[in-house]
């Protein structure tokens, strides 16, 4: 059996006195597509933000490719990871945000090129070619010299995906990437994610409220409730056949 690329081991997270994650155990395998669903405030965003190193766990371990993300060995003692350690590991991870977070002072081509050039030290010419290819793939080949402010929400989100993809991550995280979009723009973004999910061998973790989409692309669905994984299984097991009343209650909100 293949080894997981990410392991959460009894991960807890508190903000102040409030424990929002109460012991998460989770394996993510290479190329696996995982959808995370659950009520608002259940901790979905927090789970993936800890993997992106945007939030530090209060307790437990996150192992990426065999290496402990938040702890490092210093003279035989495990201490809190420093920036250097985090940077070594998080190069494998990419993330797309709800509110795009494009760099407004750069063209969309520059948005894509900045990190490969400065972080990976790649040649500008190669990066440019790869970025243009990627922007074409998300359907924005004719906009490479535009600024983000000149794009629609759906276009911005597609740029954000291209920007993350040119870094060639092994794991991509998506945090409700369509929920800030006008309804008529959701489709074009889901289409791009579907394309990536079907054709790339990255692992993907998608926090989403799009149940049909989750059914379509996810190998595994996690139902998060009040800081714990309350149910998990294949997409169809969780979304179509779950007998857990909490899951049913949650899903009933999406059926009209």
């Amino acid at each position: 059996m293949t080894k997981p690329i990410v392991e959460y081991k009894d991960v807890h997270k508190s903000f102040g006195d409030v424990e929002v994650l109460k012991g998460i155990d989770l394996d993510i395998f290479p190329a696996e597509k995982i959808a995370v669903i659950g009520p608002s405030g259940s901790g979905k965003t927090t789970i993936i933000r800890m993997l992106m190193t945007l939030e530090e766990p209060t307790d437990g371990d996150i192992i990426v490719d065999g290496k402990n993300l938040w702890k490092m060995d210093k003279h035989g003692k495990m201490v809190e990871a420093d920036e250097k350690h985090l940077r070594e590991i998080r190069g494998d991870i990419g993330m797309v945000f709800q509110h795009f977070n494009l760099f407004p002072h750069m063209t969309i081509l520059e948005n894509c090129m900045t990190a490969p050039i400065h972080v990976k030290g790649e040649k500008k010419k190669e990066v440019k070619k790869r970025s243009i290819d990627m922007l074409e793939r998300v359907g924005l080949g004719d906009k490479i010299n535009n600024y983000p402010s000149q794009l629609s929400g759906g276009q911005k989100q597609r740029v954000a995906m291209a920007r993350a993809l040119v870094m060639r991550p092994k794991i991509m995280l998506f945090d409700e990437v369509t929920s800030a979009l006008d309804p008529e723009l959701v489709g074009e973004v889901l289409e791009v994610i579907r394309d990536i999910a079907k054709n790339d061998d990255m692992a993907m973790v998608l926090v989403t409220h799009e149940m049909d989409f989750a059914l379509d692309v996810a190998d595994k669905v996690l139902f998060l409730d009040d800081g714990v994984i309350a149910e998990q299984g294949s997409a169809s097991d969780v979304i179509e056949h779950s007998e857990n009343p909490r899951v049913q209650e949650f899903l009933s909100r999406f059926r009209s």
Partner: protein
Amino acid sequence: MQDILSISQELSRGLFVTISILIASSLFAYLMGFISGLLRLSKHTVIRKFTGLYIELFRGTSLIVQLFWLYYAIPMLFGINLGSNWIIGVIAIGLNYGAYLSEVVRGSVEAVDDGQTEAAIALNLSSFQKMRYIILPQAVRMMLPEFGNYTIQMLKGTALVSLISLNDILYYGNILRSSNLSQAPLIYLVILIFYFVLALPLIFLTRKAEDISKKGVAN
């Protein structure tokens, strides 16, 4: 008319001092503003506190008192010669406005959306790269109008150096007046016009800065 011309001619002997002090002290103030504004955001409490002390000290006391401290008090108390009057003027104005500008720098850096920092981390940029390529370019755009406003204020502030016997525009005006009391209103009118004409390009640049800043992207 003849009077105005001769007054202008006399005043223009001070132009070089006024302009050179403005340029040198604003460059010094920008530098101080950036250094202390960024230090103010440091992770280390001691650095933050120390920088804060400088900022509050210079914002909380008046420029003219600071000028006199540098000119009269410090050389007597510590036996340090700070250099020519010109240098003392530049240091005093630069330190004073640097303190104000540091708050502009800090405020602008903090005003950049947190999502920008998060995107930079997600793309694995280092702290330095994040500052250099993502945060500062956006913060600087926000700062431009305030930098313009403070530069106009610095121009006005340069007039104080006539009090440590530097021969700027106001200094020559005062000399003229003392030998020509009846002409005082006219002399001060011409002085006003001098400062206003000097301020015009700065006002224009500040307007331009506001446009750039509003657009968020320079192109």
